[in-house]
């Protein structure tokens, strides 16, 4: 899958549109999980909505093409999204809040039947139930959930069930938008293990996993894109991002990841100052410059281009070869009291 130059904006009542996603491109090979990370409001969910055909009413796609396996290139501006028959079967969305995704008055089995019937008219109820039950069993989930209502299941179980339903039609691509953010760590792990199982068993060939949790992402993604203010500021293999991040924003995100490790005792980790920019009037030049600890005059004036870094790239003026890259100031040591 190739997505090129995707731009999305929201219409507002006052007239100035909010530029939520700006010129984002990526490609996704079979067997890959692309992770997209960034803080709230960086446009990651907007990107997911645009690519999965779940646009909000005030959303407008202003640029971009999508192509699958080099067959046809679809101009998603004309159609304002992916073709309708792709939804669910070619590209499927796994939404954030499982509680809101499920119908509270329908049993899980009936809901799954609805989903299947929308795409495969010939399948009857019994066959649909069998198919769903089989899938649940393959993934080690109890088949009794078919007869349960959503409120009878725990939050983690609901999220796993939604995951199973969103992949029932064997989509080519699964877009998982913050599927773990409302879950506790044990349920997060279970969900990630299940997705890995799906990949291994061939129920799923590739996925886009969106989250703000880099630690979790590093456990599932093969590549990671870091988004800031609607743009991808750095993209590389998971290993490179975790161990050799180049963009100051990526470094700040990594430094703020608190792991239960003795090394974070008795030190003060500096968070980022300021807040993410107002996207009606994004900052000039590099959009990260008002919060960047290494900002130089050029950063406010010109938009940095993508500097190739082996298997990925980063957009930062520190990387253009004329400036020496400062050591990451990660922690500030504090004398233990």
């Amino acid at each position, binding site marked *: 899958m190739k997505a090129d130059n995707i731009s999305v904006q929201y219409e507002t009542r006052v007239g100035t549109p909010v530029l939520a996603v700006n010129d984002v491109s990526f490609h996704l090979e079979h067997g890959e999980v692309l992770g997209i990370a960034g*803080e*709230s409001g960086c446009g990651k969910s907007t990107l997911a909505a645009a690519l999965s055909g779940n646009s909000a009413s005030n959303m407008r796609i202003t640029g971009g093409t999508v192509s699958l396996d080099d067959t046809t290139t679809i101009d998603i501006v004309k159609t304002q999204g992916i073709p309708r028959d792709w939804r669910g079967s070619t590209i499927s969305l796994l939404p954030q809040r499982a509680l809101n995704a499920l119908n509270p008055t329908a049993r899980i089995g009936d809901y799954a039947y609805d989903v299947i019937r929308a795409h495969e008219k010939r399948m009857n109820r019994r066959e649909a139930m069998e198919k769903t039950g089989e899938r649940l069993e*393959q*993934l*080690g*989930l*109890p088949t009794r959930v078919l007869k349960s209502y959503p409120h009878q299941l*725990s*939050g983690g179980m609901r999220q*796993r069930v939604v995951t199973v339903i969103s992949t029932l039609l064997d989509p080519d691509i699964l877009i998982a938008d913050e599927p773990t953010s409302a*879950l*506790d*760590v*044990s*349920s*997060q*792990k*279970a969900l*990630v*293990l*299940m997705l*890995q*199982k799906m990949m*291994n068993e061939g129920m799923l060939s590739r996925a886009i996993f969106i989250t*703000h*949790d*880099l*630690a*979790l992402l*590093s*456990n599932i993604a093969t590549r990671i894109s870091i988004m800031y203010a609607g743009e991808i500021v750095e993209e590389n293999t998971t290993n490179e991002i*975790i161990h050799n991040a180049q963009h100051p924003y990526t470094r*700040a*995100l*990594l430094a*703020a*990841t*608190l*792991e*239960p*490790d*003795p090394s*974070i*005792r008795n030190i*003060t*980790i*500096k*968070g*980022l*100052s300021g*807040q*993410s920019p107002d996207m009606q009037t994004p900052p000039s030049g590099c959009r990260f410059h008002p919060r960047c600890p290494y900002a130089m005059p050029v950063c406010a004036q010109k938009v940095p281009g993508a500097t190739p870094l082996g298997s990925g790239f980063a957009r930062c003026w520190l990387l253009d070869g004329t400036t020496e890259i400062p050591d990451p100031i990660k922690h500030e040591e504090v004398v233990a*009291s």
Partner: protein
Amino acid sequence: MNEPFYSVKNLTKVFGGGQEQVVAVKDVSFDVTPGEIIAIVGESGSGKSTLARMLLKLSQPTAGTIMMDGEDVTKLKRPNQLKPYWRDVQGVFQNPAGSFNQFYSVRTVLEKTFNLHEHRLSKAEKLERIHKALNLVGLDPQQTLERGSHELSGGQRQRVIIARALLVDPRLLIADESTSALDASLRVTILNVLKDLSQRLNLSVLFITHDIGQAYYLADRVFVMYRGEMVEQGPTETVLQFPQHDYTKRLLADVPRLEGWTASPGDLSIEELAKALT
């Protein structure tokens, strides 16, 4: 060391009755000394928030006692008893937007807090205290006071709520998942604010979280809750490096790490996966 000023004994909360009965908190006991930060960790549904609500006197315990300065405060009910209690014990919750009247400016929100005080302060004194509290949480009063809640970022909003709690000079701050809704980079700044306040004002903090990483960063002591019971408590290093209870061990193993889970999932067999999922 310091003497404990706040202690909880056998605190229990039961919801419903008969077959529907749920014991949300069971026999929880602990002490709090001035200036210490205690993290209460546990998964969703482990009773952490029910415990916080009881300590804040927002819900009545079924059994057990809460003592402050040697006085039994469990049965306090009337507003004239609760007001003095709330001056000492304050809460900060998960969603700062929910604790904010969206039609008020920061100044109004903070000024209203003085209704908890019985003595009257002059306008100038109030403003001086507000300035002091905002400075303590790292906000510039000039830039913040006239703003509405929608003009603040999530981190700033949460800091205003912490400042509000500080206005009454509390001795115990109960922070219930107050950093969970924030982005990682903002989260650290709030944790730093709490750490700093505890040291500067000798403020005790009960920090409730499901994130062991945050507990590790912040807390002097860690309490682990599981299904309503406190299964482990002790100094942070001891509990997290040498966990005794199986649940604490599992919690630590399930935390996602940049270097992968301690026990890497790899290619799990279907049985192992089924076990992990249930």
